[in-house]
């Protein structure tokens, strides 16, 4: 179980698998995904989106919604992993 100093009250269970992926052939580097992600999970390198880290991902799917190019493949993490909170 991991915590994140910026986001108290939430814990993350490892073993999620690569549940968010980018199809770089489709990515146009618009940075929408990076702009809406509150967990700071994304970066743009060489005009392409890249997942920096999913360590503070809240599985909100905002990145998936804003990707007009359809470059983000969004699935859920493996059952029982990912974030959890008592305070939602």
């Amino acid at each position, binding site marked *: 179980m991991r915590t994140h100093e*910026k*986001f*108290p*009250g*939430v814990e993350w*269970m490892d073993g999620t698998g690569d549940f968010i992926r980018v199809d770089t052939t489709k990515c146009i580097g*618009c940075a*929408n995904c990076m*702009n*809406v*992600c*509150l967990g*700071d999970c994304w970066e743009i390198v060489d005009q392409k989106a890249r997942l920096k880290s999913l360590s503070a991902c*809240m*599985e*909100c*799917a*905002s990145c*998936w*919604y*804003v990707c007009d190019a359809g470059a983000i493949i*969004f*699935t*859920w*993490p*493996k*059952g*029982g*992993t*990912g*974030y*959890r*909170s*008592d*305070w*939602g």
Partner: protein
Amino acid sequence: MPANDAYDVVVIGGGFGGSVAAKKCADAGLKTLMIERSQNIGEKVISGLTIPIYGFLFGPDFIRDGNPPIERPADGIINYIIKDIDSGDIDIDDSLRVPRPFSPVIAFGYNAYCKPFCQWQAQKAIESGAEVQTSTTVLDVIKENGAVAGVLLEDGRQIKSKIVIDAEGSQGLVAVKAGIREKYPPEAISLADTYDYEMDKKDVDRIFGYSLRFCWGWDEQKIAPPLGHGNGLMVWPYRNSVHFMQDHCLRLDGIKAPNLKKRFQEYHDNITSKLPWWRDEVAPKSSVRARMWEGFEIFVGLDSNLKNMPNHDNGILLVGDAAGLESTELCDGVPAAWFSADMAADVAIEAIRAGNTQKDFLKKYDERIKAHPIIQWSISGKNRFNLRYAQEKHDERLLKKCVHLAWGLGQLTHSLTPLLKMSFLFIKKDPRIITKWIKMFFRYYQNWLHNAYDYSEREQRVCDSGNRPKLGEMIFKICVGGLDLFLRILSPLIKILAVVGYHLSGLANPVMKLLLPIIRPIYLFLRKPMYPIGNWIAEKMIDFVYRADPSLFETTKGSGHIKSRQPG
């Protein structure tokens, strides 16, 4: 659970809707399995949360007759309309409020944390015989002869069922994968940045009482997220915490997605340092306990293409957020999740009994959704959406009007008809529902006072029978018992009146539109001088509820959790 086990019903998701459907199907004797991806139920459900009263009045019987974990009753909303934060130019609209002495026992909603509430519901489903499997993600549905015939799990196992009830929430990944629905455009989704602040109960009582606080304002104030982008700032008082939410549409038509991380941070800093009541009262007494975020389907109901996406297919019914039923007006989705799950379970039971789980049979569900007065009202309200025009034109009158219509007394001009229609439908079915409603308010309030709900771990509150309010108990028994007897004896007549009332309800909104300009000033004028007497009566009521015999407020055996004790 053995692989390839066959079920009558598989429910995807154990959130607010899932357990309601699972419980009802299990109660009907169907072999039911509910599958949830989180390790423990409710841990991935992020919400506000005030569940509006209509959810409890017209929702599943077991919730109304039970004792769920509530954080605080809500009696009204104080809207702060922020014109200039630096000079403190702030107007207030707090017209939507249950007045004393009815408040706080009679609430207009109940605040709750999602995890305990969803767990409470799931426990009820388990007691009814539903099986629950957590830590399991459903990847897709399985199909046979063009009909959904079960689900595919992440480990490759297939679980067969006669019907699938999809209660997976707003992202709808399974429904999208199965080709039943499409991914929502970002314009229909608002991202909610939520903080939970710990605070002493006595401070929450003193600062907030039972009222929610919402803030609205111009973009340049950088306090409440731009109206055009969705919403404002909302603060909910809980038992010993306050919940804070600012939300923002992921995108406005055609405009680039904003840098939400930066914007939310800036707004949060401004709120905590500039908003007078936060800075001076809340900040010194509170500390951040949690921060999380989640998107919700804010404007799905306002787009005809999105609204008309299927909510059923051969062998599958979609409920709650998965069916796009989140309110466009009040930001609530729990009541619609409860109503739709209840109706989906009914249709699933009927379909399985009739041996027909095809679309032609399941379309009944869609018909019932379309005929549901509250669901239809809540997914078609435009007041919150219209705030963006107030923003665009910097039109203070329009801003105040929209806020008043959505979150003030003006709400009665569009909510009264659906509320009355639902009331009359319920009364027509069983006039004695009225006494159940009354007892629910008292039971819930007693539950809140003693923090003792079904399955609560803390020591169950024992009401001391030596300290009972004997007179109050007698008055309550005579009034509510007398009303119940009256409703029972006159049941046939009341049922006829309810049918008439139902048909006349259509007039309620237009009549309210005409009368509100007269009623509103009188009501607001009288509220202040009437407060001392109202408050005095309310204090007596609170004392009565605290000490009264819990069995007075029970509607079914065992629905009161607080045990009473004989002296000695």
